[in-house]
């Protein structure tokens, strides 16, 4: 029986990264994720790893780029405005097909915003974040246990597909404390013959690069990369379904919003409403298969998000607008209460039963 | 006696070697054009070359091999 330890979400993520074999952390302080940097500052020197507080979030992502190019598991963490700074660097990492982990513990935005939790970087994360055609695998933990398990999974996925992975957490999940088991399976390491480690004068030199001045070549590179993304979409969608089998009203939420929504769904069921919850765990690839199935019997979906309505668009795409998709939102650092989600469920249920 | 070998078709006719040569035995060949369309350098007095490698030192394109 695995021992459980009481840990803060941010720290569980950091410990799991080390478990996964990450020995290179480059970061910069920003609320609400500085604990990750502080944790790594203490842990990395003890295990011969690198902790470096970079001069900026931009420098940090470029250090990750270098370490990843050199074949190592490397990561950085930041929060919303810091992730904006990393945009160019993330585009380069994706454009060079390099693996790495980027953690965004979201706060209120836009601009300097606030330090309370939000989910308003959904578009930024799922649409790549930087310039050009590319995707990150985006994973949304909803518990401290998931902060740990999904971090290990993120490194495994990043290496498997040679692409950056983003953990899209929020300040609540980052700060909350829950018991966590660190008995987590790590996949076997993959060979990286493409890495820049020195030719030893035994092979041709490797070049890590995203510049292709010939447009036909750049087009080809983009086509190849998107073929890879199709494989990811086919194989790596993850979602939790809660009481969805016979549900009329399905709430969709990720991260902390999902924890709140689950309570509302339970309450609704007690009161005879056939409610259910789909909790996307991968936001990219979006769990279209799960939504496709749900749309066959559900009559309405409610997207409960901590932003002005972002995931709602992907839900509508997944169900091809066959059924209505409502919004239940708070933003700016406010978190909806179970009561607010319950009201939305009740309203939606009344509309279905009473007709429009 | 020194020997110079030129990668004629990679020469851009920049003239830095001509100015650097202490013996003044290099010239830009105004009469001919190489594959890239430049007037390449020409050694006008092979006997006088002492193999100082001043030309190769200034050449930005590594087209001169100097042997002694």
């Amino acid at each position, binding site marked *: 029986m695995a021992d459980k330890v009481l840990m803060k979400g941010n720290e569980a993520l950091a410990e799991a990264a080390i478990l996964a074999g990450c020995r290179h952390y480059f970061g910069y302080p920003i609320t609400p994720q500085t604990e990750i940097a502080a944790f790594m500052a203490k842990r990395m020197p003890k295990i011969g790893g690198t902790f470096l507080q970079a001069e900026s979030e931009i*420098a940090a992502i470029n250090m990750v*780029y*270098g*370490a990843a190019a050199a074949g190592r598991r490397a990561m950085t963490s930041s929060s919303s405005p810091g992730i904006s700074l990393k945009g160019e660097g993330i585009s*380069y990492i994706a454009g060079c097909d390099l693996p790495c982990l980027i953690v965004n513990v979201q706060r209120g935005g836009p601009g300097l915003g606030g330090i309370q939790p939000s989910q308003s970087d959904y578009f930024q994360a799922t649409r790549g974040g930087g310039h050009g055609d590319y995707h990150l695998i985006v994973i949304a933990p909803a518990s401290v246990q998931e902060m740990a398990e999904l971090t290990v999974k993120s490194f495994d996925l990043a290496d498997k597909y040679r692409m950056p992975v983003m953990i899209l957490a929020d300040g609540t999940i980052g700060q909350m404390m829950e018991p966590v088991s660190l008995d987590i399976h790590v996949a076997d390491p993959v060979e990286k013959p493409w890495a820049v480690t020195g*030719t030893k004068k035994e092979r041709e030199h490797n070049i890590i690069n995203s510049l292709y001045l010939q447009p036909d070549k750049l087009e080809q590179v983009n086509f190849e990369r998107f073929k890879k993304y199709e494989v990811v979409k086919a194989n790596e969608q993850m979602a939790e379904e809660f009481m969805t089998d016979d549900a009329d009203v399905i709430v969709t939420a990720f991260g902390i919003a999902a924890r709140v929504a689950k309570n509302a769904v339970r309450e609704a069921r007690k009161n005879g409403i056939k409610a259910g919850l789909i909790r996307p765990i991968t936001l990219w690839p979006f769990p279209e298969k799960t939504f496709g199935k749900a749309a066959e019997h559900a009559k309405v979906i409610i997207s409960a998000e901590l932003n002005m309505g972002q995931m709602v668009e992907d839900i509508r795409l997944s169900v091809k607008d066959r059924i209505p998709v409502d919004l239940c939102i708070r933003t700016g650092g406010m978190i909806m209460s179970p009561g607010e989600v319950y009201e939305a469920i009740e309203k939606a249920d009344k509309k279905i039963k009473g007709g429009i | 006696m020194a020997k110079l070998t030129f990668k004629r078709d990679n020469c851009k006719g920049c003239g*830095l070697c001509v100015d650097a040569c202490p013996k003044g035995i290099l010239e830009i060949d105004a009469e001919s054009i190489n594959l890239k369309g430049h007037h390449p350098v020409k050694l006008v007095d092979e006997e006088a070359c002492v193999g100082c490698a001043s030309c190769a030192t200034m050449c930005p*394109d590594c087209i001169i091999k100097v042997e002694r």
Partner: protein
Amino acid sequence: MVVMERPHSLVDIPLHYCPGCTHGIVHRLVAEAIDELDIEGRTIGIAPVGCSVMAYDYFNCDMIEAAHGRAPAVATGVKRANPDNIVFTYQGDGDLASIGTAETVHAAARNENITVIFINNAIYGMTGGQMAPTSLPGQVTQTSPYGRDVKLCGYPVKICEMLSQLEGPEYLERVTVNSVSNVRKAKKAIKKAFQNQVEGKGFSLIEVVSSCPTNWGMSPKDALKWIDDNMIPYYPLGVYKDRSKEAEA
């Protein structure tokens, strides 16, 4: 006996630089240093954004193309990942002294054990000749068409002088390549900058005052003279820091 030929760590392909551009000379000096120290097999080079963006095609060692200005950060990532690799960056004045100033300063302050080759030709070549932070007062460029006005644009940035104020860096030297004797001195400096890394001494930066005949609007020969007449008085050559030597004294 071969006195001089293309070094092994310089790939045998034509360089795309303008006729008479000093990039070619400095590329060769870097390659000669790598050959002479026999480090080609463990060297990783970081290319910039600028005319020398395609340096990744020209050196025989493993290469990475970095974002504009970020090469010292990328180099830090590589060096921390694999400290036994010899890591160098090759950057222009936009890359190192404009957008990348923070990365340059902090890599120096951290005494990252890397080698930085800084090509200072007082102009942005690749994008067609705009003003650089190192452009001289009065210098006419595409974005200073009436000559650099210090009232509007301030004064040039002197990297060696600036970095020499920091305790971090091991070695800072400014050289040029506008004559045979200067090229030979530049080679010594560049080789020392690599040697320092091999010996674990720390951050070494060589600022190479270079020419851009095309965007300065003059012949290659005149551009080399312009270095003597205009650049060197503003950017004096010499050693700006040599920690090991100072410690011996």
